[in-house]
């Protein structure tokens, strides 16, 4: 977009400016590493206290962590397979469907952050 106006991050709200850190190069990877370290610590934490699960397998170290990782992956792979089967264009049920129509603009206040 050649005529896109140059953006001034200083015009963002204070909190928005602070959060810009997440988009700096390398930040996402840093966050992933922090998360991975926290996960390892949480897994190790299971060795430091007595677990009183209702089921015996709950006492396996990092049981919930491993289950969470696998369950989340299953959701994603299952959802991808489901999308293959049931995905249709937005106007599939047209006419008279909300998916293919714009939200009435008179009900909205579409204002840019730097508008007066």
């Amino acid at each position, binding site marked *: 977009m050649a005529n896109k106006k140059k953006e001034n991050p200083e015009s963002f709200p204070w909190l*928005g400016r602070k959060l810009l850190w997440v988009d700096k190069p390398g930040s996402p990877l840093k966050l992933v590493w922090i998360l991975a370290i926290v996960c390892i610590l949480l897994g190790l934490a299971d060795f430091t206290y007595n677990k009183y699960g209702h089921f015996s397998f709950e006492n396996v170290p990092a049981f*919930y962590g491993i289950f969470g990782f696998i369950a*989340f992956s299953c959701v994603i792979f299952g959802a991808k397979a489901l999308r293959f089967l049931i995905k249709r*264009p937005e106007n*599939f049920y047209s006419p008279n469907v909300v998916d293919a129509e714009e939200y009435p603009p008179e*009900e909205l206040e579409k204002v840019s952050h730097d508008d007066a």
Partner: protein
Amino acid sequence: MMMPDQFPPAFVFFVGAIALLLAPQGHARSALTLIIPIIAASILWNMEPGIYDRVEFLGITLELTRVDKLSTVFGLIFCLAAFLGNLFAWHVKDTIQQVAALLYAGSAIGAVFAGDLVTLFIYWEGTAIASVFLIWARRTEGAYHTGLRYLIIQIGSGVILLAGIVLLYRETGSLAFEKMTLGTLATWLIFLAFGIKCAFPLLHNWLQDSYPAATVTGTVILSAFTTKLAVYALARGFPGTELLIYIGAVMTVFPVFFAEIENDLRRVLAYSLNNQLGFMVVGVGIGTEMSLNGTASHAFAHILYKALLFMSVGAVLFRTGTSKASELGGLYRTMPLTTVFCLVGAASISAFPLFSGFVTKSLVLDATAENHYLIVWFMLVFASAGVLSHSGIKIPFFTFFAHDSGKRPKEAPTHMLLAMGATAFLCIFIGVFPEPLYSILPYDVEYHPYTTSHVVGQLQLLLFALLAFCFLMRTGIHPPEIRAINLDSDWIYRRLLPSWISAISVAINAIWSKNLGFWTRKVDALIVRLHKSHGPEGRIAQVWPTGSMVLWIAVLLGATLLVNFV
């Protein structure tokens, strides 16, 4: 004329709706929509347990107000939801939406306090009729047709409920709304009516069809009442019904997959709502004091965090004109407060420690484990990881972070921020201090959610799942957000049944045409034949000369003379 011995909280909303029409449009009217739920809440907070407002109607006694701990906790959260929803809708100047929101909330509260099934039915239909206007208020062709589908299903639920009530009255002679046991046609019909409103699997799609079609503020209001009224009705009518455990377990799992690939974020939240209802239904099915407390507390917390999520996506829709994930991203830059509130809602629904979902959902999960429903327990833990995937990550990540859509909308208006801020505060308050909520639950159960085992286990579940998300995103395996819809059970009544009806109609038309053609041809042939033989040119006409006619008259005359005189 009825003299109420306890002014029914629902009537506050109905009187308020009339007063609203008399108030001038503007801040005064918006303020009135906030005062009404406060008055109703103060009335019901001070009500002593008991049955009030008995009314004779067509020879039967209606009990308009039955107060106990179960009805009070649902009544309170409905008042709170009405207040927060109306605060979010402060800017709305549409009388239809304002009145509909009040009548809808009033009907839901009336149903919760109904002591008999007829009163329940009246309010049950009241919620259906009032709520559809929150969809129609969008004023588009799509919303009109969606609203019609919604209304047919909701009214259908009421008609089935009425049929069940009539049969039950014939069988037992009682209309009391008490615990029922599945077995007769009457109880099955009532169960089905509750199941439709509760969005049981395969009866669920009215929810995902209609909620994204409502107005920005209408969806926030809609999310609070109808389905939680159904959960209340199940908790009142069918606690301990084992079938509900399995229905609820399926409800927690299947929407997870649909939500993950849905593009419209308000529909994602509708699937997520369906998933959360499953936990409540499981709690009702187990039927112990602990699990029913779990259902009531989870409904309470759920109404708040679900409203908060609908508010944050609604604020984005209000500012950008879209709620589609494929069109959004990077909004944290200019809508940081909405982002934070959305993250609070996401953490609450995902049940992170210190957030409301953690202290309520664990009651249901522990009740499931204590009663040794191993497979159901696995399904619920699986669904808990699934909740994180769509409501915990997808909603905030693809709206406010992820790829930069280039949209730089202004932060949400002040009243929306206030509504979201207050709701977010309550989500955290309940999470940090669960005792006040526990103290208003139906049963006195001592429960401590913050044990080391529980906190570490839940954090492991969620953070390892988050790690899986990071891994799948960075490897490109995570499904992208694309402009599309996904088929669901509504395809049956929007495509399959109409195509069958169309095919049957074509077949009947063809048979009728052939049948008609056959007989028309037969009659035509007969007329032609008669015309040939008896027409002016026919052979029989040719042998009828005038002379022969005179001869035959002479013969007839002769015969007459013979008969008379011989």
